[in-house]
């Protein structure tokens, strides 16, 4: 069965690019363009993987979403994708145990994400 990937991103171009590539990898996609809409979707359905943008309505929307998501589906992998630059210090990696504890994502990718890299990471997380 085709795996379902949930993509939440408030940048319309980033969303359509992610959708384009993920569908190109052979997955089915469900998209939302806000944290709010993303929250509604995860209450209704369980995807096989989720990609969340970090800054949406809130500066940490992606973190909030992945926290809520993991509460319902602890075993479904989450990727956080963001254009926030590491140098500004606003970035939180997944390097320490403490960060892993509250961020709850499995992978953190800085945009522009290369399609081949994204494909590899998704396959790894889905153990394909």
């Amino acid at each position: 069965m085709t795996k379902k990937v949930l993509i939440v991103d408030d940048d319309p171009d980033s969303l359509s690019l992610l959708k384009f590539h993920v569908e190109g990898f052979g997955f089915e996609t469900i998209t939302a363009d806000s944290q709010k809409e993303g929250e509604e979707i995860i209450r209704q359905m369980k995807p096989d993987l989720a990609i969340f943008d970090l800054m949406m309505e809130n500066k940490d929307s992606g973190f909030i979403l992945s926290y809520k998501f993991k509460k319902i589906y602890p075993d479904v992998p989450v990727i956080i994708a963001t254009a926030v630059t590491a140098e500004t210090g606003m970035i939180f990696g997944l390097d320490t145990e403490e960060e892993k504890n509250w961020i709850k994502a499995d992978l953190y990718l800085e945009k522009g994400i290369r399609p081949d890299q994204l494909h590899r990471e998704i396959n790894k997380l889905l153990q394909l």
Partner: protein
Amino acid sequence: MEKLKVLVVDDEPGIRSGIHRILRNFSVGYPFMEEDFQFELIEAETGEKAIEIIESMPVDIILLDNKLPGINGIDVLEYISKKQYDVQVMMITSYASLDLAVKATNIGAYNFIPKPFTPDELKVAMEGITKHLFLKRMTRQLHKEGKEVRFQFLSVLSHELKSPINAIEGYLQIMKEKQVGDKIDDYEVMISRSIERLKGMRTLIMDLLDLTRLESGKKQREIKKIDLSEITKMAIHSIEPMAIQKNVRIYYDNGEPCYLNGDSAEVEIILNNLLSNAVKYNKEGGQVYVHVKGTDDRVIIKVEDTGIGMTEEDQEKLFQEFVRIKNVKTKNITGSGLGLSIVKRLADLYAGDVQVTSKPDVGTSFAVTLMKNAETTDTILLQ
């Protein structure tokens, strides 16, 4: 009234009680301080006891005798500066040798008061040290807040600049690999989206430049008598193409000339921002009403639209940098999120303000008030 904790370190009980009497009903106030300061005294007869007290509670000012039975005052001072306590120290000593004075100030004492001193001498010294303490704390606070604001601004800015680059790069990559087809038409949407994102980036950069010029204060302001009505007509003229595209009509109650002393470029920025918002956030076929009115000492620019409006909650966030009201209705509207914070800053320059009233799905009205003579240097004053 705020109380400052003053620790008096002296082995002579007479000096300690003397200081107590002098400072008991004394307070220090300056026009720039919000409230006066009073003093609450704590006493220590040795340096060791003083350190114990400093360790156990926050102290604001220390009056410190040098010649003490155990460790010297200067040792206490050294300890304090090593630990970087937020406290100001004034040395009290009967033989203020130059050596000691130099040493103590080098270690961080604020100043000296020679013993014996009169009540007035002590009061003057206390005024000095209190002012110093206050200013130092205030400066530190402002510095810290400024740094945080700057830092946040930069991190959001980098995000706002990188997002369009990522989008355009992503589209170009797809085109380069001809992933959708061989004909240029297959990429029409991607091309127009890329152009759209580039436009947005240009706006952001222009807004940033406006903001930087405002902030640095470096921009040479050209204050002269200007006709607001004339500038309004020009601003409407330049927004017209955008309005026509959206089928929005702009009405201006083409009134009398309305003069103020100001920089025409600054006033133009205000009008451009208000008008482009009124068009952008309007409905297809909507209207924009512009009123310009002068009173004795001020001018009021009012721009009303019949657009999508916003909730009260959204209105509160409106003037923050990079805050754009995000919802289904604004989804496809581009903007830098800086326009209104620029308008707010400009209004501040003219000792004015910005008022907003809005109703979802009915429209929004912005009223900017500018004082006619906010800037009076090098200006031709209005009669």
